[in-house]
Each structure stands twice: as C-alpha cells, then as structure tokens.
C-alpha cells in the first residue's frame, strides 16, 4: 500500500492551492520588486542617501527632504501644481473624447477597419524620446506657425474665447475649453487605449437588448442613455485609472522629468522620493474622489 505523505485534499482546497501556484510569480515579484522597494522608498524619503562603491549610506534627516522640495527647490511647487491641474483638465477631456470616438467606431460605415487601425496607432507611438526631439524640431515649428490674420489654431481658440465670454459663460469654463482645444492632438493620442476599452465594452452589449428597445419603439437617443450608457459605465472607472497610470509615463509630464532629474541628474535621491510620495498622495486623493463620485452611479450587470 502506498504511503500518503500529503493529507487528502478536498477539491476546493486543491483548487485553492493551484490558484496560489498560478499567481505565485506575482506574489514573489510583489514582495521582491514592489513591497520591498516601497518600504525602502519610505525610508529614503526621510534620509539622505549616498551611494558608494560597496553599498549605500543613510543619514536620518526627518522631514528635511519634504521641506527641501517645497521650500528650497525653485521649480517643484510650480511644476507640481501644473501637473496636477493638467491631469484634472485632461481626465474629463480624454474620457469624453474616447467615449465619443468609441461610439463612432462602433457604428457601421465604409472604411471602419482602416479608421480603427489609425485610431489605435498612437498606442505604438508613445516614445518619450521621439517627443523630446519634436519639441526642438524646426520643421514642426515652421509647419505649426500660422500668421495671425490667416486664422490658425491660435486665433481660432482666441476668437472662440471671445465668443464664449460674450455668451457670459463662466471664465473658468471658457479657460478650460480653450486649453482643451489647444491640446486636441495630445488628447487624441492619449485616448487610444481608453477607446479600445470602451469599444470592447460597446461590442459586448447583447444585440437582443437593442432589438427589444427597437421593437418597443425607443428612439436612438433613449436607447443610448437607457442601454448603452449604463452598460458601459463600469468602464469609466477602469479608464480613469488607466489615464492616470498613463500620465506617469506620458512625455511632457514635467513633474516626472523633475523627479528623474533630481534622482539621476542632481543625485538628491531622498528629495526625489519625497517628491514622488507627494505626487502619489495627490493621485490617490483624485482617485478616491472619483471613486466616491462614480461608485453609486455605476451600473453593474449581474454575472
């Protein structure tokens, strides 16, 4: 008779163990390459770090790194507020545009495949290095330069600003619209993956629901708000998270550039980590607010 080393497992237990086996790479990686470094980064934020050939030295400095970032560093406060505002400006614009574009690409028309191929193209063109070259490129400048009287992008947004102000729109709203218009290419480029997410959700809505609505005599408008919108709503949260994550590596994020420069250029590691913690704090705050705002309005289809 075979001797059983392992206790007999119920199917449930066995499946649970296999679950752990499958996600074990993540658990190991999380502890080794995320949790460990996170704890270290908290320590670094309160220490001065000097790297030597044989190891690194830590000197406890308390809140000095945070004080340095906020009081001494000439750029941090300005760049920090700018980046935060930029995220707040971009979030609604990207969400609205990608939702709109996904609905557009979900309709049937000639050349839809081509349009989709082009709309998702920005996914592969996200190189920060390319962006850095563009900003100093003379040809791009020449092409973007439009004489005032010719009515280029610049004057369009200017005259639109005047018009909106005449219509007695609140100033902050006008400002928002104008900045959003000027950032159209950036917003379109940042929307590629949110479009993918919305589009796949739109395609996942069972067509029987639409048929039902059509038979009952619902108009397109009603169908959109009563069926399409609620069923896609859980993905707004997904997309907001994605957009925020994407903004960390998006070229033109001046705060990230400043943090990198502090760490790798100026060698003040502690300060750069302190800056990142403040950045993360604001991001977390935004996410919590968004979550509180959306959580009740989101409709989950029963699985």
């Amino acid at each position, binding site marked *: 008779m075979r001797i059983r080393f392992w206790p007999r497992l119920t199917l449930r237990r066995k499946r649970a163990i*296999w679950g752990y086996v499958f996600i074990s790479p993540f*658990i190991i990686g999380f502890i*080794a390459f995320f949790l460990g470094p996170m704890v270290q980064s908290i320590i670094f934020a309160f220490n001065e770090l000097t790297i030597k050939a044989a190891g690194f030295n830590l000197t406890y400095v308390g809140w000095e790194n945070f004080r340095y970032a906020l009081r001494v560093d000439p750029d941090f406060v300005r760049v920090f507020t700018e980046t935060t505002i930029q995220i707040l400006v971009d979030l609604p614009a990207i969400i609205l545009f990608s939702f709109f574009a996904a609905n557009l690409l979900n309709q049937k028309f000639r050349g839809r495949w081509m349009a989709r191929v082009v709309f998702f193209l920005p996914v*592969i063109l*996200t190189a920060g290095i390319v962006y850095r070259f563009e900003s100093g490129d003379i040809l791009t400048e020449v092409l973007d330069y439009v004489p005032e009287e010719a009515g280029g992008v610049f004057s369009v947004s200017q005259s639109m600003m005047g018009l909106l102000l005449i219509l007695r729109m609140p100033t902050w709203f006008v400002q928002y619209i104008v900045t959003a218009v000027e950032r159209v290419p950036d917003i*379109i480029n940042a929307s590629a993956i949110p479009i993918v997410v919305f589009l796949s959700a739109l395609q996942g809505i069972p067509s029987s629901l639409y048929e039902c609505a059509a038979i009952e005599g619902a108009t397109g408008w009603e169908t959109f708000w009563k069926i399409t919108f609620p069923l896609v709503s859980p993905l707004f949260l997904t997309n907001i*998270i994605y957009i925020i994550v994407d903004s960390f590596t998006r070229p033109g994020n001046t705060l990230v550039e400043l943090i990198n420069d502090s760490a790798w250029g100026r060698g003040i590691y502690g300060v750069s980590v302190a800056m990142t913690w403040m950045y993360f704090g604001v991001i977390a705050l935004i996410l919590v607010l968004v979550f509180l705002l959306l959580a009740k309005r989101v409709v989950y289809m029963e699985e």
Partner: protein
Amino acid sequence: MAAELGRKLEEMPEVRRKSRFLTSHFYGETLWALVRAILVAGICYIIIYPLLIKLSSSMMTENDMYDMLVKWIPRKLNYDSIVQNYSLLYGYMNYPKALFNSLILAATVALLQMISSALIGYGFARFDFFGKNLFFTLVILTLLVPPQMIMVPLFLNFRFFDFFGIMPVSVNLLGTYWPFILTSITGMGLRNGFFIYIMRQVFKGLPKSLEEAALVDGAGYLRTFATIMVPGAASAMLVVFLFAFVWQYNDYQFTRMYLSGSATFLPFALEQLTRTFDVEMYSKEYISILNNTGMIMFIAPLLLLYAFLQRYFIESIERTGIVG
C-alpha cells in the same frame, strides 16, 4: 424599388405625413454619415500628421528647407539625397546593432510578460482562494504607484543584488538583462499589472466546459492551461505581446537605469545624435532633416509589427476579448 414605393406612399394622403418623416429620416442619416466621415478623417489626419511630417522631411534636401514654397513635398524627389539622409543616420546610430539589441530585449521582455501575465491572470480568473480580492487589489496598486517611487530602490537592489540577504555575496546585475528578466517573469515589469488585468478578463470570458472536460479526463492543471486555455486566449495574448513589446521598445528610463545610457540601443542612439550633430557642425535645417530621418528609422520597426499584428488587435476587440 424603394423610390417606386416612396412614390406610391406619397400618393396616399393618409401616409403623406409619415412618408415625409421617412425622407427626413433618410436625410438625417445621410447628413450624419457625412459629418461622421469628416470627423473620422479629421481625427485620422491629426494622428497621422506627425508621421507624415517626419516622412516628408526625411526625403528633403537642405535646399528644400530654405525654400518658402516647400512645405510637404520636396521640390524634386532626389533619390541620392534620400539615400544620403538614411545612410548617414545608419552610420551615426550604429543602426543594425542598436536595432538588433532593442528588438531582442523588447521581444524577450514581451514574451516573458505575456507568459507571466497569462499564468497570473488565469489564477485570478478561475480559482477561488483566500485573499484573492486582496491580491488583485495589489495588482492594481502596482499600476497606480508612479514608477519613480520604486526606481531608486530597484536600482540599488539590482546594483547590490543578494535576494534579501539569502545570497552570501551581492552581485551587480546592472548592465545585464537580468533586471528585465526578473521583473518580467514575476509580473512586475512596466505596466505588467495592466496585462494581468487584461488576461484575467479574457480567461473569465472563456467557456468553462472545455476546461472542466479536460480536468475530468485527467489532464493536470498546467496541462489544461497550456493546451485548452492558451489557444482560446491566443489573440489576446498576442495583443499583450504587442503592448509589452512596444512599451519596452520605447522605454527610456528603465533601460537607461538598468543598462546605462552608453549601451547600443535605439533610444540612446537617437539621443546621442544631438551630440554627433554638434560635432559635425551641420546647419539647423539639415539637423532637422536628419532628426526626422532618425525618428522614422526608430518608428519603422514598430509600424511594421503593428501592420502584422493589427488584425489580431482589432479582432480581439471585436470578439470582446480584451477588457470585457
């Protein structure tokens, strides 16, 4: 046929109102199709515009840059100058070697990330175990933390790598591919959490019956995964591969941190161009042409890859595979 029907309806007084509605509806549709076509074309133009600029610029000669009339199309398509632009860059960027290194690294990372996120995603999608939701929250958390937060500690960990003090002597893993390999197989690479999320959704969407049949017939869990689940999720896995490949190929910060900026990789080659141009004392205009040529050479492999894989990419969206 439709027109005939329309005329007949028009003749009947009681349907006249309705038929007018019908036609207005028709006009509405046509108008919308027109607006839609303009919108789609406009957005496509905005997306392709930077690419077109670079392409046209890379085919110009220096004289075209001074010519006020030339904006898009060079005055004369000069085969020699195009060859000259590209071959100059070919030498400056050490193109074959840089391209080879970048492709190999990106392919390795993408392959490992694809495998690890499929395994992890499958674990989250199909098994119930204690703390599953907590672990999944942690996956999302790894995404939400700015990578800069853990960059310095990661750098130090790989510089003095001793695996939590288990190894007696610390080794320097910087300058090797090990940091990439280790973070990729453990699902901690660049935006790996996003891939785990995608794979989890994909596996959740696959029917359970085939898998159960395989298990009942005595296949082990790993074998079931490899022979039943992976083929079912193949197109989504290709999409993950595409994403991971693209992000690694474009990545500058982590690659520089792990391998130092002097290594022969395309992003560094592109960056070092500025210094080369300063030495060569080219005119501002010619530098612009060469820069654009360099960027085209940087992007071209990605465009090629996208051209091959876009079919799977769009198919997997249509089959509601990805993030349903």
